């Protein structure tokens, strides 16, 4: 790898860590200084002041905030996120198995999102303003503006209430292998696809339209190369780079979208754990899940920036001259 490219990549990596550090400080500070004492919230408004004080001591909340921050971040880096306030159990013990479910849900959605959006986007571009385009473009205008819980509710009504093909809730059993419960993931995956597919398809369609009208495609066609070859070897590769950012944006949206989606289907993941923790004001759990989701979000953005840099042929030419 050449020098300027390496330097750019390293800068991006350092920036990602700085952002993550800043976010962790902001989130931690927010839970410290904003009104509302987590210990009091956990015990209830009428709790005995001495009991509140004892709980604060037990969880180390009586130490200075800076000390608390560093001991928290030190633990977090080694997978120790402290203990959940209402139950007293280690946070990781509760969210670890759930993280696996969330991983399966998001990775499956992403693996379906990418090929589907390229196929639909390019088909819509080839048949611009014809029936196939309308059949693809009109639903995307609708789903792009829908919240996850609306799509999820519609899917439940359709597939669980009227057709009775799938269960209305995705209560995953920890003691059974996930592969035997794959049908429980169908509706949640469809929900996440519904909210993300629209934007990526629209982007692919717009880029593909531009590529299709480019002169080099016209020249390739004049050379008598078959339409299928033109699509696979010339159109598709040129739509990838401009679309990466949109895909990354939606992948990052998936990281947040799991909160509502998992709650809709009562799927035990870290997203539904976060909304439960917010309602119970279980701060250690909120902090842990926020850190995990934000880290994923920052990482996805970093990977997409790196890919755009690596796939940009102009940077390769510049390095050839050096």
């Amino acid at each position: 790898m050449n020098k300027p490219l390496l330097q750019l990549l390293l800068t991006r990596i350092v920036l990602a860590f700085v952002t993550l550090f800043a976010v962790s400080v902001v989130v931690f500070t927010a839970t410290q200084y904003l009104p509302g004492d987590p210990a009091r919230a956990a015990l209830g408004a009428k709790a005995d002041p001495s009991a509140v004080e004892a709980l604060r001591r037990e969880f180390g909340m009586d130490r200075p905030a800076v000390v608390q921050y560093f001991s928290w971040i030190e633990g977090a880096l080694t997978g120790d996120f402290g203990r959940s306030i209402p139950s007293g159990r280690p946070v990781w013990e509760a969210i670890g198995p759930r993280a696996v479910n969330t991983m399966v849900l998001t990775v499956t959605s992403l693996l379906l999102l990418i090929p589907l959006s390229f196929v639909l986007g390019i088909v819509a571009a080839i048949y611009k303003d014809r029936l196939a385009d309308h059949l693809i473009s009109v639903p995307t205008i609708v789903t792009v503006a829908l919240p996850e819980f609306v799509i999820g509710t519609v899917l439940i009504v359709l597939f669980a209430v009227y057709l009775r093909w799938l269960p209305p809730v995705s209560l995953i059993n920890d003691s059974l292998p996930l592969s035997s419960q794959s049908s429980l993931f169908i509706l949640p995956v469809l929900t996440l696809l519904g909210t993300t597919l629209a934007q990526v398809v629209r982007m692919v369609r717009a880029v593909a339209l531009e590529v299709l009208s480019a002169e080099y495609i016209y020249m390739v066609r004049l050379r008598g190369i078959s339409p299928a070859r033109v699509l696979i070897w010339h159109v598709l590769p040129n739509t990838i780079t401009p679309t990466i950012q949109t895909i990354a944006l939606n992948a990052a949206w998936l990281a947040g979208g799991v909160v509502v989606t998992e709650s809709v289907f009562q799927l035990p993941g870290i997203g539904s754990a976060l909304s439960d923790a917010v309602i119970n004001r279980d701060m250690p759990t909120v902090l842990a899940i926020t850190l995990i989701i934000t880290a994923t979000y920052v990482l996805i953005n970093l990977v997409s920036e790196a890919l755009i840099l690596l796939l940009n042929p102009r940077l390769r030419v510049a390095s050839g001259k050096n």
Partner: protein
Amino acid sequence: MSTSVLRLTLAKPAARIALVLVLIIVALATLGPYFSPYAFDEIVGAPFAPITQEHWLGTDFLGRDTFSRFLYGGRTVLVVALSATVAAYIVAVPLGIYSGLRRGPLDVVLIAISDVIYALPPAIFLLVLLASTGPSLPTVIVGIVILHSPRIFRIVRLITMDISKNEYVEAAFARGESWTAICFLDILPNVLTPVTADFGVRLCGSIILYASLSYLGLGLPPPAADWGLMISENRIGITISPWIAIAPALAIAVFSVAVNVLTDSFARSVGRSKEI
């Protein structure tokens, strides 16, 4: 807004249909409570009773009239989404103009803050905020304002920087005109069009965010009627009477899709097809 922009915006039938739908939802949300046959918290029968002449949408999990609750349930999402979006512009437009014209240390600080907010997934940010302060509508509005502001700020700042390079702005400075006069007479009119073009996208975002929070039980607390909450609190009865969930889901869907289609058309008519 000039009449030609209005005509262009409503040129397509889809935009005209969207306008009618937006007006219907706004009327439903604001006037609905005056036409409701029962009070939103009045228990009128058995839970999940079927649709009858007295109860057009049946009853909910506590035996309250679903149709009455549906008529009450749109107010909050309308008020929260609209006020949060407008407030975000009131906060971010002056800051963006100031930052773009003056630059300096405040500019650096504001850019750094917006970078941190960008790095947080929106839904996660709101959840952390509500976890630490406890759920309340003012906090939700403040949270949505904080989420929208950096995005508006960035656009306004860039446009201001661009405009301030123009000769007529330099001439105004040379004539010794005051900063306030330059901001209002030279910068603001140029900023307004691109900024209003994005208003609908953000309004749609606010609707989705608030409705989702309400669904998660972090909006208006029970026994209040709120479209998002109505869907989640009745979810155990969805197989018995699906209309309890379909009606509010449809209302939210129509509202946000129609706002999206209408403002997309508006953005095109002022020459902007995409969000920056």
